[in-house]
């Protein structure tokens, strides 16, 4: 089934919620694996989100303007002996979409389209 343009699917909502949680915890920017762990906890899942599912959702959220990302300085990663990292942060549009989702859930409606992005 083809999804409606702009509509958020559950994993995308969970990612936005995770990014919001982490921001409240003082982490404005987080990488994919950190998000995957928080998403797992929020969803009470046994496993981390699959690579393909996670990064496809992150790409779409960024395309919709709900997340923004930046690549870290490769030298910083090299200094720590690890691959370079992509950091994501929740945008104002993302916060608005999340607020809309929460409001809709409170009202018992279905998840809204991310039209604000």
């Amino acid at each position, binding site marked *: 089934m083809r999804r409606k343009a702009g509509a958020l699917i559950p994993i995308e909502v969970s990612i936005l919620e995770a990014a919001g949680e982490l921001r409240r915890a003082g982490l404005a920017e987080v990488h994919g694996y950190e998000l995957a*762990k928080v998403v797992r906890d929020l969803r009470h899942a046994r496993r*981390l989100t*699959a*690579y*393909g599912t996670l990064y496809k959702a992150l790409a779409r959220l960024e395309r919709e303007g709900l997340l923004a990302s930046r690549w870290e*300085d490769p030298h910083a990663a090299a200094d720590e002996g690890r*691959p*370079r990292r992509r950091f994501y942060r929740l945008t104002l549009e993302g916060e608005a979409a999340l607020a809309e989702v929460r409001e809709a859930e409170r009202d018992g409606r279905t998840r809204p389209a991310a039209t604000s992005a």
Partner: protein
Amino acid sequence: MDAARSVGWVRRWVGLYTRGLPAGLRRDRIDEIEDDLWSQLHDKSEPGGGRDGLRGEILARLVFGIPADLAWRLEQRGVSRAPRPAPERSPTMFARFIAAMAIVGGVAWAIWSVPTAIGGWAAWGMQPIGYFIYPTALLGSFALGIATFGLVFANIDRINTVAGAMGAVGGGGGLLLTLSVPAGIVLLPIGSAALMLGLLRLDCLSGRHAWLHAAAGTALALSPLAVNISYPQGTELTLLCLGALAYGLTWLAIGWSLRSGEWMPQEPAASRP
């Protein structure tokens, strides 16, 4: 199976489904998954369930994500196929030099192989044509040896170890031929064939160029000279010359395709935000 093997499966899969994408997009996806794998492997805050739990988790994340990976890859078709602006080419002197060596070597091999196929070794003694064949064969072998070494050197940081080592063997084979050591005619084509397949994996070469070269190189190396390595005669020599002609022409095509220097590794940070 340990976690390292699961990681290997993930890497192979990512390498496979990102093949053919624009280099920057492909690098970003690979790096992102690499960081995820690294983070998971080094995450001390996770109870994990031991190494067995970790390898199962990695494998599950791979398998369950395959449909999304394929969907993502399909979404990129537009990106891959959209008319792209002409790439900023940076034909360094070194890249041009390698391409020139490949072209010179390819032409030279085509030149020596045709009269030899027709007239046999006797052609090498016929004047005035004999004056050209011998130096052309030496020059061509030298140029192909240098081109092979150059391609290894230019990609030393990123090429597969086996392909790089085979490329070095091939380059050595070309130089041996320059010194009239017959074993070079086996070492050069086998080594360069492995190298080109390695470059194909790096998206430096088109599949058509790499596979044609590998086929011609393998045919040449397996030609009768491999059995009678000194001086084959008759049909064996004709087969050898045809193999050398095909091999030379594939070098010519490869040199032509590489002449822009676009395939040279670029500074990763320069093109990224």
